């Protein structure tokens, strides 16, 4: 750790992404949009959502790396991005771990009637 890592990290020269790169990326994004719509019309069973999310992740990665210059940013920025993804994964997967491992998960959810008398007509 240098004494002033904040300076050393900032002093690297700003990388200017050129319009050509942007153009290539936007074309990729448009193509992937078409691909995701196309894939939705093919019956892949449970893999429809997998494909849709995979394409979305790919698109988001392109935006982050190039439009948002993450590819040319200091390590610290990349760490921040990874931390965000990691914590999002904690939120999603650890909660789902409860839901998928509940033995009685499927059969038990049903709408309740709010009207008490409809539930127990004979109550004294």
């Amino acid at each position: 750790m240098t004494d002033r890592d904040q300076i050393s990290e900032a002093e690297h020269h700003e990388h200017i992404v050129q319009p050509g790169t942007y153009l290539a990326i936007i074309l990729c994004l448009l193509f992937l949009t078409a691909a995701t719509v196309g894939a939705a019309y093919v019956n892949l069973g449970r893999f429809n959502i997998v494909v849709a999310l995979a394409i979305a992740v790919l698109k988001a990665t392109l935006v982050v790396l190039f439009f948002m210059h993450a590819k040319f940013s200091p390590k610290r920025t990349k760490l921040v991005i990874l931390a965000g993804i990691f914590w999002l994964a904690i939120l999603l997967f650890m909660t789902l771990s409860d839901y998928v491992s509940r033995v009685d998960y499927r059969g038990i959810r049903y709408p309740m009637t709010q009207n008490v008398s409809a539930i127990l007509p004979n109550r004294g």
Partner: protein
Amino acid sequence: MQSPLPFFPEEASSFAGNVDALFLFILSTCLFFAVLVTLLAIYAAFKYRRTSPGEVGSAVEGNTLLEIGWTVIPLFIAMGMFAWGAVVYTNFRTAPKDTLDIYVVGKQWMWKLQQPNGKREINELHIPVNRNIKLIMGSEDVIHNFYVPAFRAKMDVVPGRYNTLWFRPTKLGKYHFFCSQYCGTNHAVMGGWVTVMDPAEYAAWLSDEAGDVNPTSAGEKLFTQLACNTCHLGNGTGRAPSLNGVYGAKVLLADGTTVIADDAYIRESILQPKAKIVAGYQPVMPTFQGLVSEEQILNLTAYIKSLQTQPVPAKGAGIAPPTAGKK
């Protein structure tokens, strides 16, 4: 009846001894560490008190070996507590097979309980001693929690789902039960008494007031009233599978999977018949959503349960062959 400064509530269920033993184990371990740290701190505070205004402490920075020691040793002890606790809890969440099932409905701010024979109580629960009791609990409005301190057991009662709570009372007597999940204005008075009785007394108490119908016969009547019997023929020749012996058994579904025909499955099949179609049958059953009450579902379930002992037809039962569902 109790000392003025009581510490332990009565131990009146099979869990109570386990929970208290575990509690005492954690308590003694914690006391050991708490006393140790406190004594060390007090000792140091006197031994190393400042004697002259300009005095400076020694130049110690730390000791890696010590750090590792006081990370690893507590870790092992904690794992011991965790494992013991997990064992007690798993036992508490896994009800045995031979339970006496009591249906519990929580609503703001009362408990409605129903014995297997249909006898109903409000804010009172009578149970026989030394029997495994299972409460099948639902809520009509908000989240409640059924808590019997003497049994060391509690479980939330959540609207929109069934939760179960089982215990085995071991001691005769009358014990408080509470709602222990905050549920609105009269949360604090939403409780009552559990009376643990001698089995003979319990039987006498059960048959005492004849006013209430038993759920199985009520369910049988409903089964005819709602015309369920026109399709679910007992001999398996109807448009719908025979229900003989189906309760608790594996059912083979149209999509090749199997499901255990438990209370939840039966309730779902009544309310959302198309959610799980038995293999070999058409989805022709109408939904009974809004047509049957909570209680009537319980009665129907009780009736279907009573069919467990009826002969299962060779064809048309819907019960999965023993090999299916292994994948």
